[in-house]
């Protein structure tokens, strides 16, 4: 079994997450883009209060003990917070073609069936866009570099669900950058 890398296990508001990202240094591993996922199971309906510390600990056990992996995705984003799971400065495990080159962001929800443009799904989307926008600004990614997990050519699946439309997310990230970073996405580290 590969050695488990551990988790950060902290949650942030979008503003707190931006401040946190500015404290990080990508000296040993530097990602080139972001891959967006949804958890599918659990769905939003299965987590009516969003994620809490117990859920995150359970997810750690799931990736470490059930899947026998060295790491998991980098972020879990729900309708209230942005949870940092695998450290953003090390490679994670989430998408076979992209694990060595990309950050993985999991959105809580099954967006094959749950709405992504209203209610709690919209809140998840807004937090995910903030997380992607912040990381894009800090690491110098263009919004267009974003990939959905279902774009991985090695596997065929429905992640994230069909209600997550890439062009809409890319545009929302661009809008976020325009508002919060003057449209720029310069690398700062």
């Amino acid at each position, binding site marked *: 079994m590969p050695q488990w890398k551990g988790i950060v296990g902290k949650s942030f508001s979008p503003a707190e997450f931006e401040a946190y990202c500015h404290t990080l240094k990508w000296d040993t591993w530097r990602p080139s883009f972001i891959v967006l996922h949804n958890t599918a199971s659990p769905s939003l309906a299965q987590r009516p209060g969003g994620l809490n510390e117990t859920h995150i600990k359970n997810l750690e056990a799931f990736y470490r003990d059930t899947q026998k992996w060295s790491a998991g995705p980098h972020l879990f984003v729900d309708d209230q917070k942005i949870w940092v799971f695998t450290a953003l400065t090390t490679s994670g*495990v*989430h998408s076979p073609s992209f*694990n060595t080159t990309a950050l993985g962001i999991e959105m809580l929800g099954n967006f094959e069936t749950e709405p992504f443009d209203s209610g709690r799904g919209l809140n998840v989307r807004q937090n995910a866009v903030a997380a992607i926008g912040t990381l894009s600004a800090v690491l110098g990614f263009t919004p267009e570099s974003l990939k959905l997990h279902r774009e991985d050519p090695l*596997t065929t699946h*429905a992640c994230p669900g069909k209600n997550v439309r890439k062009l809409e997310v890319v545009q929302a990230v661009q809008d976020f950058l325009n508002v919060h970073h003057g449209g720029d996405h310069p690398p700062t580290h």
Partner: protein
Amino acid sequence: MCTTEAIIRRPTDASAIIGRVLLAVAVAAGAACQRAQPQPASPTSDAASAAHDPFTREGFEHQPEMDALRQRVRPQDSVTPATTSWQQWPEPVPELRAPTPGALLGALVNQQGWAGVLGEAAWEETLRVLPAGTNAAEGIVLQWGFMDDAVAGRDVRVLMQRQNAMWSVERMEQRYHCRRAVGADQRCQ
């Protein structure tokens, strides 16, 4: 019925540069058939034991790692690992020829580049051949341990036929082993 099985594994440990190759069983088809005389049905035999018999149809398609994954899952993981139904291969079948079914299956793996991802994107690949008379055989490629949070593995079933002393692919099908759940559209979520 008889099978020929080869397992190719590469360790995921990043420190390992060269993967190890394990040829678990490489039996001549004739000898295998001799040993694989059907056993009389026992009132106590069940599907579970048949699934582990290497010389049965159940054994031919059985992915034991999926059983192990199901057993490791805990209720708090909120997932239901499951396997999709068999689906038609989405592309034209490759035009390959080989002197034996096993050689044809190996050529298919090489042509598709499936072994190339071992050690990075996937953990292992198992090949099996199930003869069905002198001019027909089925092969299966069991891919397991995708570093993918939705898809744990894939089986590719290959129907092969002999003509003019050479074997070729007649039909291919695939199914996926899903870590979290199978959706209504028979894709991993």
